[in-house]
């Protein structure tokens, strides 16, 4: 009897589609991945939809509407493993900037007829709503980490994705520290690795798109930035980016909001 191929599903909530596009950006691996699994639901790539249950669900995007807050439960029930991909799904994304303001005001700024719009007050990560088996960080995620996570789950092992700071990756690349050597403010010391430490390699400071690393010392980094002449408002903005609602970044941005 032939072995049944595991069913892979990709689900989208509020997002830019970039993280699921990462799967299609695996130009060299795409057909191999597609050969190892049965793609059961991946609207960005296919109009075919197969019924659940699914062996692995990849969830992109944050929860921002009452309908989506319901929908995620159905997906959880139909999935053996549920992995969230990207800053929207793991931290609420850039659209979580609404969480710091009054959302009604936001709606009226953008839409002429606010009564047509249905939205929740906050943009929240998937893990606030259902149990999540694994969170893959990044805005956007790293496609090689994505392939690693897929193969790990399909083979019943833990994904090998490090949790330390971007600084380690800069050292591995041989990038001279932009903060120490040039006085460029950098979020690298408190940000999780995974991107490949690209910003410092391109002569700019990290802007935190992989979110807080394990036990980040954000206030110490803020003092360092202050010594470089960064003002309070700019510190607040720096922590209030693509992972603004991730707890350590949220607290730090609020500490500088006056």
């Amino acid at each position, binding site marked *: 009897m032939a072995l049944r191929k595991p069913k892979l599903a990709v689900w*989208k*909530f*509020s*997002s*830019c*589609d*970039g*993280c*699921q*596009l*990462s799967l*299609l*950006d695996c*130009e*060299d691996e*795409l*057909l191999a991945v*597609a050969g190892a699994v049965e*793609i059961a639901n*991946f*609207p*960005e*790539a*296919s*109009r*075919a939809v197969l019924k659940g249950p699914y062996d692995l669900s990849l969830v992109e995007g944050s929860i*921002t509407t009452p309908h*989506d807050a319901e929908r995620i439960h159905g997906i959880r029930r139909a999935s053996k493993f549920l992995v969230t991909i990207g800053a929207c799904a793991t931290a609420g*994304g*850039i*659209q979580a*900037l*609404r969480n710091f*303001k009054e959302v009604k*005001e*936001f*709606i*009226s*700024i*953008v*839409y*002429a*007829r606010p009564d*047509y*719009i249905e*939205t929740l007050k906050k943009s929240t990560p998937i893990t606030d709503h259902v149990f999540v088996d694994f969170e893959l960080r990044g*805005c*956007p995620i790293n496609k090689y980490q994505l392939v690693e996570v897929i193969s790990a789950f399909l083979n019943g092992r833990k994904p090998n994705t490090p949790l330390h700071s971007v600084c380690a990756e800069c050292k591995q690349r041989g990038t001279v520290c932009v903060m120490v050597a040039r006085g460029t403010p950098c979020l690298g010391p408190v940000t999780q690795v995974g*991107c*490949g430490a*690209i*910003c410092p390699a*391109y*002569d*700019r400071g990290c*802007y935190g*798109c992989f979110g807080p690393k394990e036990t980040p010392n954000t206030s110490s980094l803020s003092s360092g930035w202050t010594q470089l002449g960064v003002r309070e408002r*700019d510190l607040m*903005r720096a922590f209030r980016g*693509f992972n603004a609602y991730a707890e350590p970044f949220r607290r730090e941005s609020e500490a500088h909001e006056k």
Partner: protein
Amino acid sequence: MKSRTIKVDCLARVEGEGALVVKISGNQVTDIKFRIFEPPRFFEAFLRGRRFDEAPDITARICGICPIAYQMSACHAMEDAFGVKVMGPLRALRRLIYCGEWIESHALHVYLLHAPDFLGYEDAIRMAKDHPQEVQRGLRLKKAGNGIVSLLGGREIHPVNVRVGGFYKVPSKRELSTLTEELKWAREAALDTVRWVATFSFPEFERDYEFVALRHPDEYPFNEGRLVSNKGLDISIREYEQYFLEEHVAHSNALHSRLKERDAYFVGPQARYSLNFDKLSPLSQEAARAAGLGKTCRNPFQSIIVRSVELVQVCDEALRLIDQYEMPDGPAVKVEPRTSTGYGCTEAPRGIVYHRYRMDDRGIILDAKIVPPTSQNQKTIEGDLWQFVPANIAMQKDKLQWRCEQAIRNYDPCISCATHFLKLQIETE
């Protein structure tokens, strides 16, 4: 103050999940609604209070498929506001990174998203079983485009190297020339693409569209030019809001755009092509002619050929830019913020994307307006269906459904999943 801002900022970002409802009563189509139900994300609202130099990175997150388009429009708007012009090699590098995005985005759409419709497959992965060479070619082309974006931008999606005034770091001539070999292959592959898609069969379908695109005196348009149409529009980017209007309709979370004087219009490859045929390189023109295209293309189903011709164009252009590149003295022009308003409009792979920002003296954004291509095409997409469905009403329901989906995919709506996530209902009363 509040009521004034409501009036000024009646704008949505668009993209994502769409649905289509077609209602048929007897032999009459009674209603068609192309609905975008992507949850709103309020970019224009939370851009307020951010610094001008954050706009390129923040607005990139509107779309994972065409982040460069948002970065370019944001940069140009900011530079317009602060009276800065980016010239010479920096300007050329911007064109080059845009070439990369067009190649990546067009190859994705032509091979992975649109071609399966013509050949009758649910997706490219299934298509790859019967057409492995073509799908492999599409993936490699896409990778060639991503190669440019990665080298210049640091990564394919949400690149980190673009900034107001230029870049954070510029490549050496030698680094850039590592792209040449693969792009030479890509140019040949793009020519093969045109030949391949020209063999598809296309429904007989034409409409008298108003095409809107940028037009530049010397170049096929990317970042600069005047906004023109085939029905007499010829304006500077700053005049955009005097001529175009956005409306909020109940069935969509995307605002519908229209021309104040004439209603619906059409942006994207077909509009660019039809308004700028004379600016295509000789190689691209020849490929278009050989594929049977005229100087204007009014059949939206043939957009796949036009997109493929543009693939030839940008591979050709990328090679030219790399060949002529000389490393600039610095990676960026200095930018000093001041109280001002700036306007930017560039050609995303799927059509014009317009940005307008107002800043205070420290460069803090006071308000922002962004009009993406898909919201501009929404009305035209619905118009196509109003003509297409009645003409094909005898078609079997499943077949008609697929054709309607294909008609929407003609426009490569930003986030193609918008159309691949289509929930099409045909209600027969």
